[in-house]
């Protein structure tokens, strides 16, 4: 495998210039800039202002860490100017955190959107020209931080797709790399199994803390998770309960020791298998792992989902041969042989690992080739209107 070596020694498998919007109000400008300069990707912000408490902390952590993702060469922060996520302060913190190039503009200081796009294009071109001079160098599987996610699950996800992904996860961990398992709602019912695999009593405690904490917040809010999770599609696909979905889901993390539990969008300090506390909503979960430093993500889907990510390639795996036949443009890997009995989980795992290595070297999985650039940072505290029915 060959990747782009970053100043801190980590390797990117892509070499993007990030055009990062610090607030939704700057999204159009960020998008126009990125569209005008080859080598740039826009990260549009679903919030960035009007946020309070931990919502603001999560947003700030994620924006800083996105610039730090190894797939990113450098970042242009595009702000409006008056938002809670102060763009100049963000850019200064990014420069302090690493040796990557960082530029910043605001629409208000540029004198409107037209001038901001012009100035942004000029700065982005400069970054893209410098990025283009970086060449790929040899890297190992152990240099990878691999995210995992399930979406549009059906019963085949637990029978085939997730166990196959689990073999790849084990290979990455064995090589010294890192694998992220997330979607805390879909850990409910598996916490004892996971805690028994924790490296230390503290990690086990963290697993119980995030799972029981989430259960408690559902109960306290008087919310019935059933119907949202499993979703209507999950149930139509044969999943009856959240525990059944979760037991099928955790196998994508493989079988290794759980080294750490990290907060949403936080970069793990440990290598090996880690759990990130992410929501069950796929786009937010995938985006959190991207912020946490994942260079690639493998995504299992029984019913078929197109979502991707602007910064990291997302590889789609299904265990459902009908879905593979119905949505070939969106699915990269057919694991249904493990259901039909024509292949083993081990054989498919080796094949999927080969695909991951090719993708690391530049091959585009479906979501990347189609430009599926779905992105959203989880925002948890919304206190500005009552929104009562």
């Amino acid at each position, binding site marked *: 495998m060959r990747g782009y070596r970053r100043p801190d020694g980590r390797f990117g498998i892509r070499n993007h210039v990030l055009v990062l919007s610090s607030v939704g109000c700057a999204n159009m400008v960020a998008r126009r800039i990125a569209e005008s300069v080859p080598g740039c990707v826009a990260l549009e912000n679903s919030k960035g202002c009007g946020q309070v408490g931990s919502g603001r902390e999560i947003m700030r952590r994620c924006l800083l860490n996105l610039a730090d993702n190894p797939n990113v060469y450098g970042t242009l922060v595009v702000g409006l100017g008056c938002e809670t996520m102060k763009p100049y302060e963000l850019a200064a913190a990014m420069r302090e955190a690493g040796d990557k190039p960082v530029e910043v503009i605001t629409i208000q200081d540029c004198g409107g959107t037209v001038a901001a796009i012009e100035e942004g294009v000029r700065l982005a071109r400069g970054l893209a020209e410098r990025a283009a001079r970086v060449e790929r160098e040899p890297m190992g599987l152990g240099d990878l931080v691999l995210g995992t996610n399930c979406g549009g699950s059906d019963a085949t996800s637990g*029978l085939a797709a997730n166990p196959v992904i689990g073999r790849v996860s084990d290979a990455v961990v064995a090589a010294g790399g890192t694998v992220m398992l997330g979607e805390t709602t879909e850990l409910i019912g598996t916490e004892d199994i996971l805690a028994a695999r924790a490296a230390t009593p503290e990690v086990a405690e963290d697993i119980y803390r995030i799972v029981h904490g989430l259960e408690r917040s559902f109960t306290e809010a008087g919310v019935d998770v059933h119907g949202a999770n499993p979703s209507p599609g999950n149930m139509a696909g044969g999943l*009856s309960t959240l*525990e059944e979905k979760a037991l099928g889901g955790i196998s994508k993390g493989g079988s290794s020791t759980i080294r750490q539990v990290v907060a949403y969008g936080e970069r793990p300090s440990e290598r090996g298998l880690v759990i990130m506390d992410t929501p069950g909503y796929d786009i937010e979960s995938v985006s959190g792992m991207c912020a946490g430093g994942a260079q690639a993500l493998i995504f299992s889907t029984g019913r078929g989902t197109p979502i991707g990510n602007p910064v990291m390639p997302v590889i789609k795996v299904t265990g459902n041969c009908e879905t593979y036949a119905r949505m070939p443009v969106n699915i990269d890997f057919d694991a249904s042989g493990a*259901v039909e009995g024509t292949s083993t989980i081990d054989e498919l795992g080796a094949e999927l690992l080969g695909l991951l290595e090719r993708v690391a070297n530049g091959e585009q999985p479906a979501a990347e080739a189609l430009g599926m650039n779905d992105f959203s940072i989880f925002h948890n505290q919304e206190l500005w209107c009552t929104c009562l029915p």
Partner: protein
Amino acid sequence: MPKRALLMHEGDDVVTVIEAVAAGETVRVATKAGAYACELVSLEDVPRFHKVCLSPLAPHDLVRKYGEVIGEATAPIERGAYVHTHNIASLKTGVRA
């Protein structure tokens, strides 16, 4: 030809049919490794990738798949019956009345 189903773990109460099954059809159950486990007769129509009961369950009995608890029975469930949201429920979610 009997229809095919998978038993994910020894001792599971349910199996997953890997093709749609009609009431009265015979289902041949294999283990994950592909070995023959048993045969049963489906009492109901069951969609592809949904579950059929292997061992009879009474209300509040724990239901096992993957060797782990996936919920509890909410009605009596016979061997060969369709198992889904109408007769099993999560122990973990939902606001209990």
